[in-house]
């Protein structure tokens, strides 16, 4: 599984005071790159809030690891979705805007999401050092629910 992002340039953002609503809907926008096996579920729409995506994916993985059999990520500005269905130790991934179903081990999804979060967090802090002290930013990239 390959999970990555392309981050747009952000102008006129006060990163020290951005709220959860800002981070979930308005800032750190970009594209999703998602390949599962030979399936491509990438979304190059430019407006995807990447911090929200990282936090939501982490929540989804936590639920799958905690016993949930299926979780669906809903994009913020459309009815498009990505579905994760657990089947034994594997996860079947499908998307409303892509064809086919990709299959990958649950631990591979978990590691990909963890890596995605850390790379995104590091890049945002490097680009905008003031966000590193923002408590909401810390919360969304934190270790709540035992996630890391």
């Amino acid at each position: 599984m390959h999970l990555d992002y392309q981050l747009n340039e952000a102008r006129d953002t006060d990163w020290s005071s951005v709220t959860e609503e800002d981070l979930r809907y308005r800032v750190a926008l970009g594209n999703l790159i998602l390949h599962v096996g030979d399936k491509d579920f990438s979304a190059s729409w430019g407006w995807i809030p990447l911090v929200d995506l990282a936090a939501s994916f982490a929540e989804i993985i936590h639920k799958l690891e905690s016993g949930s059999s299926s979780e669906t990520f809903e994009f913020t500005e459309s009815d498009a979705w990505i579905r994760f269905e657990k089947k034994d130790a594997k996860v079947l991934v499908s998307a409303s805007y892509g064809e086919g179903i990709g299959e990958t081990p649950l631990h591979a999804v978990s590691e990909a999401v963890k890596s995605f979060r850390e790379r995104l967090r590091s890049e945002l802090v490097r680009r905008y050092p003031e966000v590193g002290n923002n408590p909401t930013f810390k919360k969304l990239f934190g270790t709540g629910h035992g996630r890391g």
Partner: protein
Amino acid sequence: MSFRRLIIVLAGFGLLLTAGPSVAQTGVEQVTLTRWALQHIMARHWPDSTATGAGKFQAGITEDSLRDMINEAVRAGRARRNTHGRPGVIYEYDFQRQIGTTIDGGPATRLRVVVNNRNEVITAFPF
């Protein structure tokens, strides 16, 4: 108390607290469409928006008609909690007529409105 009843009570409470020209008001519920939210919606979902992967409102939409549709969706639509820890509530309502286009360019008859915990619209789009 059901979740929907709780939402109605909270929204009704908001009726007492907010006023002004940007307030979308209905009989028992109201939400506020701020200038920021309107700009957010226009940038992604207005007929002339170039944003891809996002539903678009039909040509001829105005701020007033958007506010009317949001009102109707909040008053009569299905409410559910926002997903995966996002703040607020999602309202969805089927107008039974075309209000825009889907991300595939097909006709959209439904409106999704995301409202925060202060009864302010975060975003709204056809699907």
